[in-house]
């Protein structure tokens, strides 16, 4: 297991190099200039422009800039935001809990609905319920996030008035960050009104963000389940007199979970990508919204640092999935 772990970590290095090269190259391909963006509409005199560029190191060749950046990263320094002058890592860590909170709730929603839906579809294969689940999940999978989010806002926030349109919590509340997760912080401070406000704000974005993973999980669960239900050991369980419910919930599900867990792990990347759109639509003060704003301001260090940290998270989650895999599947756990 340890050797396996180290091997996986070794693969992380080229992945990181790839991510930094790619983001660096892409950012410099976008037309625009952070100094001009900072100057705003009034413009800037050429002398001051040149000085600012030199200050930011933007006058040097790209290769040198990349080298400067990488050597900083290797020393744990992601640089300072051009706009706010604060260290990128600090900004990231302040905003990250909001994204994590949203993503975790989206995963809970996706797994909580997708897994049972896929199981029900598999057990009722070929019947109306199966077709309904599969059609719905195909629709969910094909739905563009921004459009789906807007539809839900129009229905639930504007027409029905059940949920707020945007934000993370009502402006009436000020919650001192302890963990950074509003749902936890409000409970820790015993402020139930604030907790419910946070829940209200969270529901729609979590549903929007979780829709595509939900569809993927439901379809994967269904096909894994159908395959497992044909296995000899399922027949053995039935021959033992195990009730149909227990056959599905215990004997089949455990085996069907193996591919489903892999898919859930892969969905984390999709979720963080989706968070960029979802946070923008719902003005959710997380990493996604911050990245979009940084791109608009051509805030190079913030974009590079942000994307690298997000990539780190995705890589970590996939490592975690590999470990979980072993927990569910004894054949992997016992490989030496």
């Amino acid at each position, binding site marked *: 297991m340890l050797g396996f772990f180290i091997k996986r970590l070794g693969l992380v290095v080229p992945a990181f190099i790839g991510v930094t090269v790619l983001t660096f190259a892409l950012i410099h391909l976008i037309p625009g200039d952070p100094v001009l963006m900072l100057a705003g509409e009034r413009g800037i005199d050429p002398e001051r422009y040149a000085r600012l560029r030199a200050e930011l190191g933007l006058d040097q060749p790209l290769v040198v800039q990349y080298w400067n950046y990488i050597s900083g990263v290797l020393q744990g320094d992601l640089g300072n935001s051009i706009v706010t002058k604060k260290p990128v890592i600090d900004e990231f860590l302040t905003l990250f809990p909001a994204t994590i909170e949203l993503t975790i709730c989206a995963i809970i929603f996706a797994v909580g609905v997708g897994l049972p839906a896929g199981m029900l579809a598999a057990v009722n294969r070929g019947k109306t319920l199966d077709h309904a689940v599969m059609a719905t999940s195909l629709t969910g999978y094909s739905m563009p996030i921004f459009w789906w989010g807007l539809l839900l806002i129009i229905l639930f926030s504007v027409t029905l008035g059940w949920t707020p349109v945007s934000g993370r919590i009502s402006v009436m509340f000020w919650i001192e960050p302890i963990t950074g997760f509003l749902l936890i912080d409000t409970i820790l401070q015993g402020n139930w009104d604030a907790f419910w406000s946070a829940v209200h704000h969270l529901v729609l974005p979590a549903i929007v963000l979780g829709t595509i993973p939900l569809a993927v999980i439901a379809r994967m669960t269904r096909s894994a389940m159908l395959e497992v239900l044909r296995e000899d050991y399922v027949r053995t369980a039935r021959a*033992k007199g195990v009730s149909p419910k227990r056959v599905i919930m215990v004997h089949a599900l455990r085996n069907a979970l193996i591919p489903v867990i892999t898919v859930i792990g892969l969905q984390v990347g999709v979720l963080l990508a989706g968070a960029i759109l979802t946070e923008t639509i719902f003005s959710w003060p997380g990493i996604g919204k911050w990245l979009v704003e940084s791109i608009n301001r051509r805030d190079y260090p913030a974009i590079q640092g942000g994307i690298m940290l997000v990539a780190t998270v995705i890589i970590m989650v996939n490592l975690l999935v590999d470990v979980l895999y072993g927990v569910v599947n004894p054949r992997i756990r016992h490989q030496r």
Partner: protein
Amino acid sequence: MPLLDIQNMTVEFGEVSSPFRAVDGLSLTVNEGEVVGIVGESGSGKSVSSLATMGLVAYPGRVTADRMHFAGQDLQAMSSRKRRKLTGSEIAMIFQEPMTSLNPCFTVGWQIMEALKIHEGGGRAERRERAEDLLRLVGIPDPGRRLTAFPHQMSGGMSQRVMIAMALACNPRLLIADEPTTALDVTIQAQIMDLLLDLQQQRGMGMVLITHDLAVVAEAAHRVVVMYAGQVVETGTVPEIFEHPRHPYTQALLASLPENSVGRNRLQTLPGVVPGAYDRPHGCLLHPRCPYSQRHCREEQPQLFGEGPFRHRCFYPLDDEGNPTYD
């Protein structure tokens, strides 16, 4: 009263309007302590009929029978809940593929104890002890440690021993063994067969032994049912069937045994294959492959002729010399 009494059982798959009959009018009785062998080629309906007896034919398969009694209880009339109480405890089954018949995600001990838990309850420690005893009973060394082993850590022969232990967990009165040795090494086959027969005799279980190994049947069974294309073609006692087969198919099966070809260059075979869903012939199902078939065989399907345990489905049954009796 026989332990298992099945009359005219039919198992159908596919469309109701044009079904495929995997089992066609099977009648089978097994007495307490008796071993009944079911033989036939692959595709002759042996496994499906045993699954139907266990109540394991899943939708869209349809099982019908004039009578399906186990120890005087009507299996068709009882609720599925009540029937589940019988399956795994009073009637148990072991399968052809031991390696895939155990759940890879659970330990061997867990899987044996589950059978005990479902049917007998009892405490955890007691179940553990029983499971250990069962593993010892089926000849697994160091049973205490083996309880925590996963199926992938065991060989095929070991797995089949575990399957046997699991089937015997609740002291069944009837054991259905569906080709229990087919997937195993030849050297292991004899061990497993000996183990099964020992346990059958010790416990006085009724046993249905499905196999295409006629040598095993000759050694182990009291009575034999020969199946072809879902139908029973001949039944009888072991000596009678082996000495004087009445049905040409039984004769051909026996002739194909390697020991009956000693001194010849080639094994004797019956050309062709068992008809499937779409190529069932009119008349006697065997006639395209039968060396003795007449016009009558092509036109009409024979019934089961004969009395008592001796039945055959042939218009021109073979005489004691093995020649057809055309009159």
